[in-house]
């Protein structure tokens, strides 16, 4: 109950003063912090789409697997999730690369419908496989800083969420640097712009697809690791993030990394404000309404799709 007291103090102040902007500021901050995690999940989705034009409907389940990987590694080693991220990302990169090479690669040149059906099948398989192996009960990864928070006036910033936000943006920035500053990154971008011409430059597109899928999955899993200090780990934990990532990617322009980051922050704030000022149960409703509005009025996204940086 003690952890709830700042919130209740805020709401009491709102009643007495009427014009207090604290709930609004708090909702925006909460939304931005969540938006950072959404950005990481969505950047992974968008790099996969941007490179091989495949919509990965299993993306949320890779977030979930990242959470479970963190949970199990933590229970064996007792290490902090921020350390375990260095193990989870390579592991999930390999897993993602294997999934790409063994399954996704077979449908790379098929219509979207076929690709979606395949990744949907992978999604259901991973989710219910996790359910079968580990059961439905929520599991927590305890950290010493789980309840720590910074205060700026009346606005409260929970430390684990701030860390997750900063690490997420750092990883997105590293990806951007990789794509623009390294030869391998340039090869990846070349493949995304024109696979046929990339072949003429001596680039093997299949290798680039495996690389892009591995990176996308590693980023999704990293988001999963980062959220373990404040979200429970369970088989359906990724569903929500997968859906959010689709909305973000469409909003940001499909295949556009900067757009995905900006879109994620917009979505985070939209969700948070709907939850705060309309109804908590309807926060996702606000997100989906925004999604449908984007499809109607600006289907290419707020920045414009098609470019991988």
């Amino acid at each position: 109950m003690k952890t709830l007291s700042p919130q209740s103090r805020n709401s009491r102040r709102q009643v007495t003063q009427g014009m207090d902007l604290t709930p609004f500021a708090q909702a925006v901050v909460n939304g931005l912090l969540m938006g950072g995690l959404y950005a990481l999940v969505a950047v992974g989705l968008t790099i996969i789409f941007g490179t091989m034009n495949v919509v990965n409907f299993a993306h949320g389940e890779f977030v979930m697997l990242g959470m479970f990987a963190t949970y199990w590694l933590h229970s064996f080693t007792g290490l902090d999730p921020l350390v375990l991220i260095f193990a989870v990302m390579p592991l999930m990169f390999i897993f993602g690369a294997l999934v790409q090479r063994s399954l996704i690669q077979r449908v790379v040149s098929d219509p979207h419908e076929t690709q979606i059906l395949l990744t949907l099948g992978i999604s259901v398989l991973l989710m219910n496989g996790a359910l079968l192996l580990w059961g439905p009960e929520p599991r927590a990864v305890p950290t010493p800083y789980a309840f720590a928070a910074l205060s700026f006036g009346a606005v409260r910033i929970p430390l684990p969420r701030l860390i997750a936000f900063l690490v997420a943006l750092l990883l997105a920035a590293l990806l951007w640097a990789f794509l623009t500053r390294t030869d391998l990154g340039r090869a990846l971008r070349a493949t995304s712009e024109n696979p046929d011409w990339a072949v003429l430059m001596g680039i093997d597109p299949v290798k680039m697809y495996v690389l892009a899928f591995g990176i996308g999955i590693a980023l999704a899993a990293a988001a999963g690791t980062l959220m373990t200090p404040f979200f429970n780990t369970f088989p359906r934990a990724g569903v929500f993030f997968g859906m959010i990532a689709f909305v973000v990617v469409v909003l940001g322009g499909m295949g556009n990394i900067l757009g995905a980051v900006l879109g994620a922050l917009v979505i985070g704030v939209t969700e948070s404000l709907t939850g705060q000022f309309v109804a908590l149960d309807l926060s996702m409703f606000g997100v989906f309404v925004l999604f449908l509005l984007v499809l109607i009025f600006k289907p290419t996204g707020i920045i414009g799709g098609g470019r991988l940086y």
Partner: protein
Amino acid sequence: MDAKSLPAAGRKAAIRTPGNVLPLLLLAVLLAFPLADPDDYLLRLATNIFYFGALGCAWNLIGGFGGQLSLAHASLFALGAYPTGLLLINLGVTPLLGGLVGIGAAVLGALAIGYPTFRLRGPYFALGTLAFNEITRILLLYFRDYTRGPLGLIVPFKGNNPLNLQFSTAEPYYYLGLAILLLGVYAGYRVSKSRMGYYLAAIRGDQDAAESIGIDLTTTKLKALVLSAALTGLVGAFYTVYIAYIDPESVASIDLSIKIVLIAIIGGTGTVWGPVLGATILIPLTEVSNAMFGSGKAGASLILYAVLLIVIVLFSPRGLILWLERPYRVLLARIAGKG
């Protein structure tokens, strides 16, 4: 189509007859089946196959013939189911009228998805349907004053009353289900032979080429989706009274959407009989898996669906009906040869 590929024109008429007789024979067997006094479990299993076959047929109109992947058919089903259930429970309105309201709701839902997304190329329609399905589920859970939220609707049994579509025995539900399945098959047959069907086939093949020969993409896809939604809403309405209990997780979740898609895909998308074959395979298979692993939330049947989906997409994307087509033609030819 099958008659055309044969050389001698004289054999055409002879072959066409068994081609018509065999489905009629199957129908006669299905009509007579309850007379053999099977136990209720078998009747209910058959009824489930009929209803899910009809859902597969409905999905097939837009997802199969038009190649537009819809993951919103659970919500369209729910939009047919909820108004019917609510009107019957609260106001005692017959499902025959309530079903019309449900069909209307499903059609409006279809327009809300189709209008913004059908103008776009790429995976937007599939993504839009996913979002719509979630919106419907969230709203059904949220407006619990009307929908009872997660508790769901229980349709009370008010005695044997054909007007309420409530019967004390399983047989009438069986025939009702069979009638709806026939309607679904008929809709698929009519669409496949119509101008719209050819437009849809062109769109499925290549949207740009279809547009360049003057096909109005948005209107054609929208028409097919509306027809599909109306049929789905109708099944939702009848199914509600049959099963007597609906809740957002069972009628508006993505799992049901996947099940509907799977039925069409296993059988063969874009074929008249594919969804019927798909339901005939998938529904008993689900029963077997539930019996072996329990029907709880442990997701064994969903693992089965997932594996089937992956295997079919990778190895037999045109569905299992492809494997039956040749033996069926040989059978037809043999019957014709003897006759």
